[in-house]
């Protein structure tokens, strides 16, 4: 692994319950600055829940309780007063594309506007840059004022990626972004992610059901199962012939269950 890695997110003994039902059972690990961390694991393993704790959108689930701590740059996120500022540091791409009921332009300009940016020229620039990064610009540049919800599923997903980039986050979390996206566009977005990591120095957490995607992109990979972190290691080790746990090997090689 790289030398002098700095810890960006420090998760310690994180437990999450929905009512009485556990979703995460005391997990601890660090996310390093500027790495791409792949998170894999079968359904219901708590991957989405983990992301929601980090940007504190789990607060909208009334019966969810969180124990343990998540520190971002050394600060416990649950104690941060300016939760909006915290969320602006984190770009979040949800599994099903959620187009806000706004035009394509307004979708991407939403976050900069809520942060107070009004300058039209700057907004135009951000919108173009983000749409290009999300590999969507060429398809929509002539109809920026059309409703975002009128785009195809894959286009909407790329729109949400553009939107997540619009507030120049330090951390980008992607939750199964490729569900609705065709393989060719997926490849293009993967290129963008690599570029964001190397050039924009973004920290990327990539939750994915496609283990090969983690293998292609991630520096390190974490394997989750039923709310437990089974193993986290460099991607090479996780995908090698001998990861620390047999079950990791089975999952990665598709003979799981």
């Amino acid at each position, binding site marked *: 692994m790289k030398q002098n890695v700095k810890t960006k997110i420090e998760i310690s003994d994180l437990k999450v319950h929905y009512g009485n039902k556990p979703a995460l059972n005391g997990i601890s690990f660090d996310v390093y600055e500027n790495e791409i961390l792949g998170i894999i694991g079968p359904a219901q393993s708590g991957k989405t829940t983990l992301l929601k704790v980090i940007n504190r*959108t789990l607060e909208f689930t009334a019966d969810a309780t969180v124990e343990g701590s998540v520190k971002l740059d050394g600060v416990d996120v649950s104690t941060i007063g300016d939760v*909006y500022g915290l*969320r602006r540091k984190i770009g979040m791409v*949800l599994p099903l594309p959620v187009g*806000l009921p706004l035009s394509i332009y307004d979708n991407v300009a939403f976050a900069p506007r809520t942060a107070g940016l009004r300058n039209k020229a700057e907004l135009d620039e951000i919108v173009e840059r983000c749409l290009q990064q999300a590999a969507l610009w060429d398809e929509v540049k002539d109809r920026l004022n059309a409703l975002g919800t009128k785009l195809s599923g894959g286009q909407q997903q790329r729109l*949400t990626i553009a939107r997540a980039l619009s507030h120049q986050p330090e951390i980008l979390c992607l939750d199964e972004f490729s569900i609705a996206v065709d393989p060719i566009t997926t490849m293009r977005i993967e290129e963008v992610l690599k570029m964001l990591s190397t050039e924009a120095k973004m920290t990327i957490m990539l939750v994915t059901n496609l283990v090969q995607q983690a293998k292609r992109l991630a520096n390190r990979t974490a394997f989750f199962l039923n709310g437990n972190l089974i193993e986290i290691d460099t991607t090479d080790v996780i995908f090698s012939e001998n990861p620390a746990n047999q079950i990791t090997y089975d999952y990665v090689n598709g003979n799981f269950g």
Partner: protein
Amino acid sequence: MDKSKIVFHSIALITLVVVFLFFWYLIENTHTEIGQQPTANSQQPTADSHLYLLLPISLLAILLGVACAFYLEERLPPTNWFRRLIESEVAIFTGIPSLLYGLLAVEIFVSYTLGSSGQGWGVLFYAEVLTFIVLVMPLTIRTTQAALRSVATPIRESAYALGASQWQVLSNQVVPLAFPGILAGCCRAMSRALAAAALLMGIHTWGYTHETAISAGIHSRYVLLLVAALLFSTFFSFLKENPT
């Protein structure tokens, strides 16, 4: 049916019964001079001016209902006791068919346009206003809450994830999406109020047949039926598995 729901419904029901009895008492005590024709020099406003007051009041009650629903749905967690109590009351009130409110309104209206004089009409008029408020407000609260709830959580979550404040999420996402539903609910409530007002108009032009009715003993039977019907529908919403 879970236990806390029964508790909240019971508390709601008890408060309703207490309020109902209190108003019943007030109304009964203003029935003293029933049978008198309204006199030309009396200080009572005419029936018409009452109606013209009732409709703007209903409109206000509807707007208040919308505000109430926003407060309950967006500011209070579903587990909050105040929210649960109000929701229980709303469930009971919306379970009552609007026809019953109409009949209740007629009963009060006839009493105050025909019956009492002097002090009496004031209390009765407030009782009438209350009937209209109860006719429109719970319905508005309920439909508005449903409209707000119909805005999918992921939409809110995505907006919040982009760093929007609650106000921005409401004004930019939730309200535009929920607006048609909220408006439909308001229209439905307003149509209830208008229909009740029309009923009162009809009764008014219909004339003073009420007097004869009272002497024929119809009045008390009418009241009895009305109370029974109210009770039944109240129990109906009380017993219903899923009131909200």
